[in-house]
């Protein structure tokens, strides 16, 4: 049996690895299945058949309302955010060439947390109502992610380039600084803001509406498209600086663009779902296990896995302690941190 199948359509042609293809299709089906399950579970239980009916029907009974207006946007947002974080982590692991890199560790998530908390603290008045529309919040956190991403980038720049180790170390330092700033902002605002900010920092998709999904989706899709054009380059970076130069690539220019993409993806996800931790670390690793390290397939598989992780974590978060809702980030960290320790253990001789 052949390992690869070639696909040709006029001038466009590429090889499809059977295993990757099967994995991708399998994961897509898994996500759809999980979506249907997740749509049905909650305070109001709906059978899978009714869920499918409710998705496609236009009637206005209770089941439809719950599925279409409450659960659907939340689930879609979980998937989008998970996918974005996973791709962001995959890129970072490619450029930093360290399997332990992720948007949380180099400070991108921290930057977004800071601007979000600052927004909540500075724009609420004494009666705890926001003086500015909440719709600006994603913009604020996005700006935070990008600004901190670039701050780390420029501080790590030395002798005409970015050394991956320096990038990580400076990321760790800068995230400590923004964490201090975040705490200060939480103290400056009223306690109501503090607890709301705290939920956001931990990461939560509670109360998502369609507008949020509609804002995030095009953004993620657009970035994903650009990313696929760049995935070829990412493959070279994974092999080392010298190889990139020998193969005619531009090390620093590529790193800049890839880092920009990574930050934009993580920023978008964090802006809507908050600081959901460890997804950007876990998903790419699992994907590498499944399909190897060629970014052409690694990226979509990471994205699918990232979406699955957040979807499942949110399902647990909203049902396990019902009626209490735990922020989804608590669960991703609870799975992610032991996984991280396992990775550290595995990579001990590298």
């Amino acid at each position, binding site marked *: 049996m052949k390992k690869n199948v070639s696909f040709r359509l006029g001038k466009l042609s590429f090889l499809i690895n059977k295993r990757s293809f099967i994995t991708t299709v399998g994961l897509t089906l898994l996500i759809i299945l999980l979506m249907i399950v997740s749509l049905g579970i909650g305070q109001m239980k709906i059978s899978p058949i009714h869920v499918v009916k409710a998705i496609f029907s236009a009637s206005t009974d209770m089941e439809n309302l719950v599925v279409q207006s409450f659960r659907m946007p939340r689930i879609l947002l979980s998937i989008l955010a998970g996918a974005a974080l996973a791709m962001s982590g995959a890129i970072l692991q490619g450029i930093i060439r*360290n399997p332990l890199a992720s948007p949380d560790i180099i400070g991108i998530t921290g930057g977004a947390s800071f601007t979000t908390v600052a927004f909540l603290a500075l724009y609420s008045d004494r009666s705890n109502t926001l003086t500015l529309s909440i719709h600006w919040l994603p913009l604020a956190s996005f700006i935070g992610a990008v600004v901190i991403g670039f701050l780390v980038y420029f501080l790590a720049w*030395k002798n005409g380039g970015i050394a991956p180790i320096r990038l*990580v*170390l400076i990321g760790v330092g800068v995230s400590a600084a923004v964490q*201090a700033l975040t*705490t200060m902002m939480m103290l400056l605002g009223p306690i109501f803001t*503090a607890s709301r900010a705290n939920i956001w920092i931990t990461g939560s998709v509670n109360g998502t509406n369609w507008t949020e999904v509609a804002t995030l989706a095009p953004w993620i899709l657009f970035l994903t498209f650009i990313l696929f054009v760049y995935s070829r380059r990412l493959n070279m970076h994974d092999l080392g600086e010298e190889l990139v130069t020998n193969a005619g690539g531009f090390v620093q220019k590529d790193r800049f663009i890839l880092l920009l993409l990574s930050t934009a993806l993580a920023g978008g996800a964090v802006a809507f779902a908050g600081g959901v931790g460890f997804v950007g670390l876990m998903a790419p690793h699992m994907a590498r296990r499944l399909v190897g390290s060629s970014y052409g397939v690694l990226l979509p598989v990471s994205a699918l896995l990232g979406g699955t992780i957040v979807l499942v974590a949110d399902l647990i978060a909203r049902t396990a302690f019902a009626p209490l809702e*735990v922020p989804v*980030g608590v669960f991703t960290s609870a799975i992610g941190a032991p996984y991280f320790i396992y990775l550290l253990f595995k990579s001990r001789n590298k």
Partner: protein
Amino acid sequence: MIKSNANKIIVLTIGVLLVVFLMWASTIFGLTKVTTQTLVNSIYHFDGSNEHIIIQQARIPRALIAAAVGGSLAIAGAIMQGLTNNPLASPSLFGVNAGASFLVVVGISFLGFTSSGSFTWLAFAGAAVSSIIVYVLGSMGRDGITPIKITLAGAAIAALFSSLTQGILTLNESALDQVLFWLAGSVQGRDLDVLIGVLPYLILGWLASIFIGKQMNVLTMGEDIAKGLGQKTLLIKIVGAIIVVLLAGGSVAIAGPIGFIGIVIPHISRWFVGIDYRWIIPYSGLLGAMLLLMADIAARYIIMPAEVPVGVMTAFIGVPFFIYIARRGINE
């Protein structure tokens, strides 16, 4: 760098005087300014007036706590940098503070602890657990401890514990209210009793750290050389780790996680006295006390009448320094 031992002792004495001076300044300056005369009177002829109460209940504990915590964190940092051979090592970045905070928050939310005195053991336990995890993770593998491995392990453990802490706090708003200021790291509003409760452990740590200096010098030459010279390296590492846990855990129990003192101060000490740990450790203690006292005084004036948590101040001072070291290169 100061060369002769006599001069080092002179500078050390000046350091002690400076710490005393800063403690005096810490009791004098603030929203309510008091005179030295009132300070003396409040000690010898306490009359229950507002100013006297402020001095007795707020200012003096605060000055003492700042000095003790600052010194302890700096010494803990110096020992960590020596043990791990990593200039970026410090209690905050290696997750020791985060581990201690996590268990304290668990104590408050689930075990119903309210008095700061009961935090102490939890903070020690948390500091111990997280430093063991980070050390084991960072030293696994053939090439032993490498700076990048242990820094990443530290960052990950810190991230893990802080996200778990946040998770607990989202479920328990009253606990959030109670611990938020503590979590930012502050020496304000702490009872003297808390300090007195922890002080025996801190003193034990200080004394042990002075005696371990000579052994640290041998150890920093490299594990193989140290073993060749007949040192029981494992024993020294364990003693060093216990000191770190006592000092960092004790500090967190009193003041919450205050970052960056442990990373900045040992470097400044090295600038004064070179690479000899017998000197670095006492110098770190004094300089750490000075830094925290100064940061705490400054924290009162920045957004008067409110106060910036001193942990935020030390982060402002420490991060540029950290970035400078990271840029200079960790292997030089």
